[in-house]
């Protein structure tokens, strides 16, 4: 699995993706890791099928005992179906999840891990060097959904917003925004159900200072592409699948 450091200062952000050994037919996912001095957080650690590759990649950077927290933006299997396997290695870890999905995510087989339900209005996670913010993103696409904003690194981990189901060898960052639009359009119109929810998110995220917008699938947006994406998304009509 490809591993890239996207921010490296007192704390660091890693993205793990583009697994060449991934089982055919499974969508590619971006997993993230925030490494602070005494705490390590895995964000949307992925599905059961990529667990071995993901843990292997993680072990190149951190000792297992350093991983203290997991975050699941929502309940989908590509986000967190590996939970039961992670728990084998991290029985003392805390899992931050939208409160709405706690009882559903427990179906992925973790009993010992400590569930930290996130209330609808969001909250914060203090990792010492950095205080991460849980940004509400409900109905984008899941009805209980959060993104994570790092005000120091100016990174917004944006879950399925900004996502693209791209080729397995796609670049880690978006290189041609205009070409990328074509890939994004159907995904956002089909997966995102609510224009109202989208506008609320745009308003909320528009106030943040973002250098990197990091979705769970496909290329990451950086620099001017972040604003380009927000402007494009604001104009997009979503929830179009109703016949």
């Amino acid at each position, binding site marked *: 699995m490809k591993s890239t450091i996207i921010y490296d200062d007192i704390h660091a952000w890693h993205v793990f993706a583009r697994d060449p050994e991934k089982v055919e037919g499974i969508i590619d996912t971006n997993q993230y890791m925030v490494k602070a001095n005494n705490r390590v957080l895995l964000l949307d650690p992925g599905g059961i099928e990529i667990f*071995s*590759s993901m*843990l*292997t990649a993680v*072990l190149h950077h951190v000792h297992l005992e350093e991983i203290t927290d997991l975050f699941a933006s929502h309940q989908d299997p590509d986000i967190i179906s590996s939970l039961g*396997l992670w728990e084998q290695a991290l029985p003392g870890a805390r899992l931050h999840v939208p409160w709405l999905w706690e009882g559903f995510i427990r179906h992925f087989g973790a009993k010992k891990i400590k569930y930290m339900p996130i209330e609808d209005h969001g909250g914060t996670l203090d990792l010492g060097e950095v205080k991460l913010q849980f940004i509400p993103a409900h109905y984008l696409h899941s009805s209980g959904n959060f993104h994570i904003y790092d005000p120091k690194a100016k990174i917004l981990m944006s879950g399925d917003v900004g996502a693209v189901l791209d080729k397995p060898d796609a670049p880690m960052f978006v290189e041609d925004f205009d070409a990328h639009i074509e890939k994004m359009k159907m995904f956002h119109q089909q997966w995102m159900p609510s224009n109202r929810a989208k506008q609320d998110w745009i308003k909320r995220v528009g106030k943040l200072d973002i250098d990197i917008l990091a979705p769970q699938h496909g290329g990451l947006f950086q620099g001017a592409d972040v604003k380009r994406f927000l402007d494009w998304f604001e104009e997009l009509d979503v929830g179009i699948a109703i016949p």
Partner: protein
Amino acid sequence: MTTQETVLIAAATVTSELSEVSQVAKNMTLSVMNAKTISQCAGESARGFHPITDYIEDIAKNIDHLVIQISEEARTLSRLSVIYSQSEIGLKRYETVIRKAKDAAHVSSLKGIMQKLYDEFENCRTLLLRKLESLSVSLDDMKNITRSSIVISIMSRVEAAGAFEFRKDLEVVADNLESSTEDIRSHTDISYDKIITVMEQLHRETQK
């Protein structure tokens, strides 16, 4: 076929076959009520048949109790097979990590976890084997009951022979008992064979 699949199929087979046994036992109870009435009408000529009807009643009750016990054991077996499978899958995924992460800086942090996973897997296998053994003993008990039932059906036929004008009615009771016993034996044998096959598969895996 994986061990979990074999165990799940075996547990489902036991549950299904035992459900048939339960139905046969119910029919036996009805048949024994009929036999009691006939033997009462036959009076002195069917004197030897009275205790036989009591035996048949006891057999039907014992079968019913065993069916409940075996069905519960089969349910537990299904649950254990799922836990066993999850444990095996988890272990395999971690073995893959060990293989792939040979040159990773922090691979040593997996050492303690691997030992824990191996121990848990062995524990699951032991529990599964114990439950299979327990189930095979219960099914063996059922087979013993059918052996007693065969003896009773022979006795009932002998007693029916001396019951003069009620002979034919009591022979029908003996026929019913004989065919019920044969049904129960057949369903029990199918279940027993399945359980023994799984036990052998699991033992072979343990030896590997």
